[in-house]
């Protein structure tokens, strides 16, 4: 663990290669414009930078508000050890989403205008405000972790005082913009394929965000246990998450299928089209197979199997967001959109930077330990904290 020079491992090589291609793509994006760096066109103005970086990015960061609500509002204390990793994922996630948006915007320097304009009729305006405010909330929720590390007692107490209203505000803001990312598409009834267009889009986006919040927590806890030994979550708690996730999957599945049925849109799923194939892939991966698997006790009670189910759920809902943003819009546009290499490499670079920042934060900040509030855990924190000179303030 204590190597001076980082060894050149496979993943580190991949990481460096991704960043090099990302830097090159960034150069093309800045000096060549969107035309040179993307396969976007007048017919297809939104690609994976919106479909994946924004829609999927925000969805994957939903673990933050889900866990903060579970632990601090519903007071389910057992999940406290994973509240911080979830918070970190959310905070980094939103920072990266904002960063990714700068690539997609044609005139990113004008983004501040969202803050000086009053445009309550625009879903984008509302999403912009929510994301800005929620990122601030996440920053304030995250700050105590840094203060704890630096032993800044006084500001820590102030932040602790406002923590409850802050968490409530965070849950409300998340509810608003997670659903609003679905509302973005309500204005295109003539363009989005009927398998995805429904007035229920905001509700479906919100339920799936919570579901993914739970799936990501299972996924991350298992990954963390593998890479940071000693930080594994009790199997009982993973099982608990799996149980709640199953409930939300069933709710989502019922609402989604009932909605298709009542809009008479299931007929489109029965036709041998590209859209129907993608729809069934989304349904199968996202909730049909996971619900079927979770019916079995052996799967529900095994953390490893729950981890595999969570990967299925996450892939299925990633596909759902991409289907809304890309697959469902291709028919009316009359073109097939396949992202350019530079779009992919910038997206991969953003993911890589996210993983890197997460690793660094875990290494240097008390993420997996709660030193401040729980005296019982203080000892373990002392053991794990690397001996770095700590400024006392």
């Amino acid at each position, binding site marked *: 663990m204590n190597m001076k020079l980082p060894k050149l491992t496979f993943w580190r090589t991949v990481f460096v290669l991704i960043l090099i291609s990302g830097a090159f793509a960034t150069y093309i994006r800045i000096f060549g414009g969107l035309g040179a760096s993307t396969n976007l066109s007048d017919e297809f103005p939104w690609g994976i930078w919106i479909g994946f970086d924004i829609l999927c990015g925000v969805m994957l960061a939903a673990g933050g508000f889900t866990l903060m609500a579970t632990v601090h509002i519903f007071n389910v204390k057992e999940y406290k050890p994973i509240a911080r990793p979830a918070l970190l994922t959310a905070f980094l996630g939103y920072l990266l989403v904002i960063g990714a948006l700068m690539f997609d915007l044609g005139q990113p320097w004008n983004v501040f205008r*969202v803050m000086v*304009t009053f*445009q309550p009729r*625009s879903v984008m305006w509302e999403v912009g405000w929510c994301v800005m405010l929620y990122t601030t909330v996440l920053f304030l929720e995250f700050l105590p972790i840094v203060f704890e590390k630096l032993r800044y007692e006084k500001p820590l107490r102030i932040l602790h005082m406002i923590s409850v209203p802050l968490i*409530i505000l965070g849950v409300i803001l998340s509810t608003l913009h997670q659903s609003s990312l679905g*509302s*973005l598409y*309500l*204005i295109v009834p*003539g363009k989005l394929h009927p398998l995805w267009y429904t007035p229920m889009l905001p509700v479906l986006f919100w339920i799936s965000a919570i579901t993914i919040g739970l799936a990501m927590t299972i996924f991350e806890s298992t990954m963390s246990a593998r890479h940071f030994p000693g930080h594994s979550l009790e199997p009982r708690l993973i099982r608990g998450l799996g149980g709640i996730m199953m409930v939300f999957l069933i709710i989502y599945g019922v609402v989604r299928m009932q909605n298709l049925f009542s809009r008479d849109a299931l007929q489109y799923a029965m036709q041998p089209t590209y859209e129907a194939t993608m729809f069934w892939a989304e349904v199968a991966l996202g909730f049909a197979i996971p619900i079927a698997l979770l019916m079995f006790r052996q799967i529900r009670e095994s953390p490893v199997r729950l981890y595999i189910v969570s990967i299925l759920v996450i892939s299925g809902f990633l596909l759902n967001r991409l289907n809304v943003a890309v697959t469902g819009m291709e028919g009316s546009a009359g073109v097939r959109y396949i992202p350019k290499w530079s779009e992919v490499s910038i997206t991969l670079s953003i993911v890589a930077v996210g993983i890197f920042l997460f690793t660094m934060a875990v290494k240097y900040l008390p993420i997996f330990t709660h030193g401040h509030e729980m005296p019982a855990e203080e000892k373990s924190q002392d053991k794990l904290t690397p001996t770095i000179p700590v400024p006392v303030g």
Partner: protein
Amino acid sequence: MSKAILFDATECIGCLECEGACAQQNGLPYDETIAQAKKMSETKVTYVATGPDETYMRRLCMHCEDPACASVCPVEALVKTPEGPVAYYGDKCMGCRYCMVACPFSVPKYEWSKAIPRVTKCTLCGDRTGMTTGCAEACPTGATMVGDRTQLLAEAHRRISQNPGTYLNHIYGEDEVGGTSVLMISAVPFGEFGLPTQYGPTPLPQLTGAVLAHIPDVVTVGGVVLGGIYWITHRREIVAKVENDEKDEH
């Protein structure tokens, strides 16, 4: 007085004078190649579509009464002006391209090749004073007319009722997406020229507006419910603690 265009397809001879005049008006290039392009692009904000049997239809920004593009724009770079035109302010635009996605007629186009790109679309010559546009001035047959929307609508109704055999009994833009400032009458169904036919009289912004109207409810109800849950779950703890302490005392 709201500036509008009435296009009578039965009078159009497909001479493309309007295209050339429009390019000149907007400082855009125009040559043989551009004339042949049958679509709007960053350098062409109007074109003449060809239908069956040498019929023609102009395509341009419809300047909706309640435009989807202006309603979705988070920075008010697109605005429906009281004078009629849907105006675009490029210096305000952040380039999210939501207007392009939202427009039911897929009108706004983008300067993809530029490092500092803008949206391009017909401005209904909003910068010119008086009831005139470059395209209408250039039209040799009077197929494109400019005037007040109410008067043009009356004129369209008059033409249809006087020549029921010539025209379809439909003014495109009278009701579509809540009405548009560009009105069209034709002998050939509008779908033949690629105009969308699935839109009813509901302005599209109402679809998102219905959801956005719930935001205050989510904030207030959400705040009260979450605060209440917090109070209950933590109150239980305090009560349990007090009861325990009392037990210990006895």
